[in-house]
């Protein structure tokens, strides 16, 4: 009937939306990105989800190690280097690489 192919596509869409990033095949990456929620609320939710996952895995444990905090600080160092790169560019030793 008219909506039969529509139903099949919708099922595939839903199935793709449930997958995590690591399980998505390379060819499906663009369509997977289409299923993600890019509204401000959705972005906020994904940030909060990511934070909770990191927190519950590395910090909210009985015997946490240095890893949880150290990874966070290393990420902060790397990010601040990237933000300052336009300024650090002027300290380069050679002009042509």
């Amino acid at each position, binding site marked *: 009937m008219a909506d039969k192919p529509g139903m099949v596509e919708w099922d595939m869409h839903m199935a793709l939306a449930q997958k995590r990033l690591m399980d998505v095949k390379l060819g499906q990456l663009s369509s997977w990105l289409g299923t993600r929620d890019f509204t401000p609320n959705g972005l906020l939710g994904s940030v*909060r989800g990511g*934070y*909770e996952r990191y*927190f519950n*895995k*590395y*910090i*909210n*444990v*009985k*015997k*946490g*190690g*240095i*890893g*949880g*905090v*150290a*990874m*966070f600080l*290393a990420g902060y*160092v790397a990010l601040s*280097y990237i933000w300052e790169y336009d300024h*650090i*560019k002027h*300290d*380069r*030793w*050679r002009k042509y*690489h």
Partner: protein
Amino acid sequence: MLSRLVLVSGHILKNSGSFGACLVQASRSFHQSSQSRAPVPPLPEKGGKVRHGIFPEELFTLLYPKTGVTGPYMLGTGLLLYMLSKEIYVINHETFAAASIGVVIIYGVKKFGPSVAAFSGIVSADKFDVAQEVKDQAMASLAQGIEDEKKEQWRVEGRCMLFDAKRNNVAMLLETNYRERLHMVTNEVKKRLDYQVELQNLHRRMEQEHMVNWVEQSVIKSITPQQVQGIWSLH
């Protein structure tokens, strides 16, 4: 907010364990959209594994099937050399500062890590004991409340007997009152009837006496003087 508090104190203590737990429990119930009544699972013992302090173990596991054990290290070396040669990472005064700070941090962690971990283990164990005690007290008081409630329910069952006894009491009172009044009525009626009887007796007696007196008087009056002489002459 709360997480940064935990992180800052976690920077000082190696084990940022369960003293953040109570804060996290509160934040968990705020963040979850669907409130479930299942008991909160206990904290995991150890966090995710991290190699050399900053590389999560997942990276090594990811590359192991294709490149074996040295894969990630080769990747790291290659990336480092690429960044150095293309001067994506520029060596300047900051590199020297970073290196010095890194050496100091690593030395500090290696040397004082275990002792700080032991100390924070003691601290979190104390906090855990306090929390456990609070929980035990709460459970005990709730169990006591359950016992008291059961006792009250048992008491309520005896209510019927109580009401029966009360009803019997009231019936007895009513009965006693009724009989008292009955007695009183009987006594009063008897008194009144006795009065009437006495009254009639009095009447009859008075009539009798009066009549007797009258007859005596008339007899005495009818005794003429000649009769009196006649009686005296008999002597």
